[in-house]
């Protein structure tokens, strides 16, 4: 089974990568720049 530490690292990776991606995509969507 997945250890608690691994679950935390998985969450850490997803938050930084997917959270960061979503954040900057949001900025891009609101922007009029190309």
């Amino acid at each position, binding site marked *: *089974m*997945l*250890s608690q*530490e*691994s679950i*935390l*690292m*998985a969450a*850490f*990776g*997803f938050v*930084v*990568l*997917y959270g*960061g*991606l979503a954040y*900057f*995509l949001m*900025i*891009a969507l609101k*922007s009029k*720049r*190309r």
Partner: protein
Amino acid sequence: MRGSNYMQREIWSSRTGFILATVGSAVGLGNIWRFNYLTYENGGGAFLIPYFVALFTAGISLIILELALGSKFKGAAPLALKRANKRFEWIGWWAALSGFIITMYYVVIVGWALIYLEKAFVLGWGEDANGYFFGTVLQLTDSAWDLGGFPVPVLLGAAAVWGVTWIVEAKGVQAGIEKANRIFMPLLWILALVLVARALTLEGAFTGIDWYLKPDFNRLFEYHVWLAAYGQIFYTLGIGMAIMIAYGSYLPDGSDIANNALIVSLANGAFSFLMGFAVFGTLGYMAAASGQGVDQVVADGIGLAFVVFPTALNLLPGLNALTAVAFFACLVVAGLSSLVSLVEGFVASLMDKFEMERGRAVRVTVVFGLLGSLLYASRGGLYWLDIVDHFIMIYGLLVVGTLEAVAIGWIFGAGKIKEWVNASSDVRAGIWWDLSVKLIVPVVLVVLVAEETASNLATPYGGYPQMAAYLGMALMAAGIALSLLLSMVRREVD
């Protein structure tokens, strides 16, 4: 369309098209078979910390730098760097030639994936995946000196991959590269999700993922772990191969650079991280099914894709063919989208320098590229692939990255590029960018090159005869000499 000097330069049709193409370029085979192994090998989840530090202190800064160079100077690597300073043109040529050298063997690997994709419908590699790959497909000879002719399927696979690349490239930026990536990118993410979903439903999958992510924070005190993270960032983002400069040159004026660089870098990392779940989940099942530990079955690179994974696919309790097709399609699509960008970096350089039409530049690139691929498609080609890959990664990409950072950061002036970036970007390049380009990137890259050189001098790379290693070094020297020669040829109007 003619080169940039007397006809209008092609441009991306939309921001989405540019982002998809650039993510397609960054996401390649390494995202599937290298990142997750490095993570496992360098402290599990703890490796994410140096990886993110490297991403934010070096990778993103260099992507911003390369995109900005292309966008500001409206040229592929040689022309853009020449317009920054005439003495820099050769650096652009070495970047373009490095990309072209990589293309020649990358095509052959994607060709193998194509062969496996065709076999995947019936798991055609049989019970002995190792014997099938090295014996039946590659028909590998005993030494690098024995090229031994060509296995026909490998030759046809490479030719087919060159064919697809030719078609996409000949159609140009919008109708070719952009359109292809509008298909490639969604397809790639769907395939990755299919593989993750399949892996997570397998018994033992979470044990495998535990091997992937269980953190060992003590490893963070090891300096090699940090070097591995920086190395991975440079290799994965497609820096130093003339790609990002060419792609940046097709951005219309006023296009965002910094935020686009962030999106591309994070999407690239997100894909790698996701694929780790598919790979280690499947390896976890394979280990459980064969009564071994994950550490006994784990592999990276070619060994993972063409030996370990086919073995794991044989063992699956169901949906074997579907999973196999998804996996090899994933390799083919990730490989093709990166190949197209590698070729574009070289094609755009030829178009700029020799004022060639795109069609002609693509033909020249494909013909010479196919000839170069013959070495790697031969029965002894795997040895040369391994040797050239090793040397080009160090003396091509890392050296180009160092030279770019020093040339622009210290000689041309980082401030001028930053001004250009900040004039049109939603996210500002601040003092962190100067610090990264002027200090962190050159220092880390010089250390990486020095470490690798010292190791190569101490023992011949990969246990190959010293002569093979010398030949690898000679190829690099010849590439640099050719870059200098090309930069001396005066053809452009400016």
